């Protein structure tokens, strides 16, 4: 009985697989028939939180991808001899891993050719398994948790650096310039926050700096007083928080209210200009890091196009999702096909000059030689102070000079 059930299931799966296999070649034929000039519809998915605490960042990511898609349409790209018409299918994952996988399945069912996203590490990691199964390439411009590319999935790429590159960068900058003796490390118990906090702790310990037992909140915590009072009692002279700006702002403000004089340092999630609004004058002196180059160091052409199209400046990761979408399109162009199986090898071999500089992937899908930038808050404005690349710290002004010379 059991065996026959198994056989039945196998048969069903086999039929399903064959069915799917048969369906695909039919599709272009169907789209070809009605149009006089042959054209091909290519759907590119984008996923990020469009509701919830970090919806502003999600929208920023989506705008980046949208700009790339619209530029590609304006450029009248031909794929397989047909006019390529790109559409962006934007979905909302609410920064929730459960919703993230549902939305991922939805995009797979909608037969998108490639995906840009998701924003959070916590949503990208579970969703990547679904994309991997479907064989659809996914490029994230903001998920920095190392685990994402350590799963052995061939379809996963990122245009941004990893926490285990970013964490050490901010931690070593902190250790070198502020020379703290005791550091309190706090995180928001998300995959991102915990990941980067772990890396910071590791680097600090390696530099023989004492670290207090980890304190935690959640990604919705606004009352940090209890945790901060404890930190104050231990006389920590630096604080690192792994989390987003919506929780980091109150943390910083309450820390100053309690009279904590320690240096506060954040990861990229809380490295936004919103920090001044969220924490007011207390934000001054904040140190924070961003994976990659700051938006204002992105390609001029991109910045102008973005501003013109959306009437705002990119907040954080838009240049990276812009590059992500462009990489997909570029690989399709080279492979002369929008079939994921055909253009995936081209994507892996990419060597592309994007808005965030030269992009090439290593074997895992991580960006080679990702830059990290350290910022400091002064008079209500975040200004880059140093670029860290391959373990080497360069002063920001010098870096820009060198980049200017290269251009």
């Amino acid at each position: 009985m059991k065996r026959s059930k198994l056989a039945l299931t196998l048969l069903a799966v086999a039929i399903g697989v064959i069915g799917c296999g048969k369906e695909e070649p039919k599709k272009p034929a169907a789209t070809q028939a009605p149009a006089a000039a042959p054209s091909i519809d290519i759907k590119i998915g984008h996923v990020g939180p469009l509701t919830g605490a970090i919806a502003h960042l999600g929208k920023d990511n989506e705008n980046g991808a949208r700009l790339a898609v619209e530029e590609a349409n304006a450029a009248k790209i031909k794929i397989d001899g047909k006019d390529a018409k790109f559409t962006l299918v934007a979905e909302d994952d609410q920064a929730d891993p459960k919703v993230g996988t549902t939305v991922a399945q939805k995009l797979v069912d909608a037969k998108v050719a490639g995906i840009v996203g998701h924003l959070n590490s916590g949503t990208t990691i579970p969703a990547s398994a679904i994309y991997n199964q479907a064989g659809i390439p996914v490029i994230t411009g903001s998920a920095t948790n190392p685990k994402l590319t350590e799963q052995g999935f061939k379809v996963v790429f990122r245009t941004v650096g990893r926490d285990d590159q970013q964490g050490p960068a901010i931690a070593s900058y902190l250790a070198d310039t502020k020379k703290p003796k005791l550091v309190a490390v706090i995180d928001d118990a998300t995959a991102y926050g915990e990941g980067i906090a772990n890396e910071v702790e590791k680097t600090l310990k390696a530099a023989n700096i004492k670290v207090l037992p980890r304190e935690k909140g959640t990604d919705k915590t606004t009352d940090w007083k209890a945790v901060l009072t404890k930190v104050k009692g231990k006389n920590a002279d630096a604080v690192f928080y792994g989390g987003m700006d919506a929780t980091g702002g109150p943390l910083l403000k309450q820390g100053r209210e309690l009279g904590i004089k320690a240096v506060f340092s954040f990861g990229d999630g809380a490295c936004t200009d919103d920090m001044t609004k969220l924490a007011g004058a207390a934000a001054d002196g904040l140190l924070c890091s961003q994976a990659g180059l700051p938006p204002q160091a992105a390609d001029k052409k991109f910045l102008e196009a973005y501003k013109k199209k959306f009437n705002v400046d990119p907040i954080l990761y838009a240049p990276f999702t812009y590059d992500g979408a462009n990489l997909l399109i570029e690989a399709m162009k080279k492979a002369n096909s929008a079939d994921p199986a055909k253009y995936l090898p081209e994507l892996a071999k990419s060597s592309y000059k994007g808005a965030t500089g030269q992009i090439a992937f290593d074997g895992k899908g991580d960006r080679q030689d990702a830059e990290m930038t350290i910022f400091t808050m002064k008079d209500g404005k975040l200004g880059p102070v140093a670029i860290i690349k391959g373990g080497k710290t360069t002063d920001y002004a010098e870096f820009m000079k060198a980049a200017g010379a290269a251009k």
Partner: protein
Amino acid sequence: MDIFVQQLINGLTLGAVYAIVALGYTMVYGIIQLINFAHGEVVMIGAMVAFTVINALAAAGLPPLAVVLIGAGCAIPVCMLVGYAMERMAYRPLRLAPRLAPLITAIGVSIILQHLAMLVWSRNVLAFPQIIPITTYSFFGAIITGVQLTILGLCFAMMAGLALLVYRTRLGTAMRATAQNPLVARLMGVDVNRVIAATFIIGAALGAVAGVMVGTYYGVAQYTMGSVLGLKAFAAAVLGGIGNIPGAMVGGLLLGVVEALGAGYIGDLTDLCRYGLGPAASCADGGHFVLFGSNYQDVFAFVVLILVLVFRPSGLLGERVGDRA
């Protein structure tokens, strides 16, 4: 010691806000045995309205206190209106329905209000303009800010005011009569519907003030902020004995203090290295091996709630729950 006092102050401030919100839950429950899950959303709307007003006036050059007062002055009537509207439209038609119906309606109202707020104020985290300068006072070695002092003072004043209203005025007498037996109260000439509406309106006004306080204290407001705050305040109301007004005050303050002390000390208390039990590798050189960290902050509050409910099912001060069921 100063750290302990500091945690106590943190807890009391948080607890005072919980208490004010808890009053809204407990008053409504006391009078119609309805857990108004939408009350957290009223608090959120209070914060949002105050945000809009304060944001608009921030650059006008008025003194900060006046700006906040105007903000509260706008938030309170809006919330009263919301409170009245939801009673009139969502709960009154269900007055005679089985108890489960209004409860589910309350959850529905909560979702509707949340999403309306999302449409009006966007889904972003709204940052209050930082107009109030941080003034700090030293108190037994701990630091208390002007905002905290104001919150504490205002909360106690509101609690006292509510107690006066309930126990010393005609409306209060009518409310207590309705709570005891709505049918008999009606026979005695009490306009029950009006009393219930008044209860919702008063609760909403308190919620509005709580919203303004939370918004200005933490500096952020968002359309989802009501749910967690509401849940904690509801827990506080149950802790004190739901339906009991002094109970909500005690429950709120207690919950806030337990949360602050819990988050502040659980890490140290469960540090195995203190007791010589932790693994040598992590304990060496003054290291730590912490079993439970501050991530258990929320758990703490609810553990206390469960303990109280196990040993005193009617809550700390609640007495007359049994005679109603």
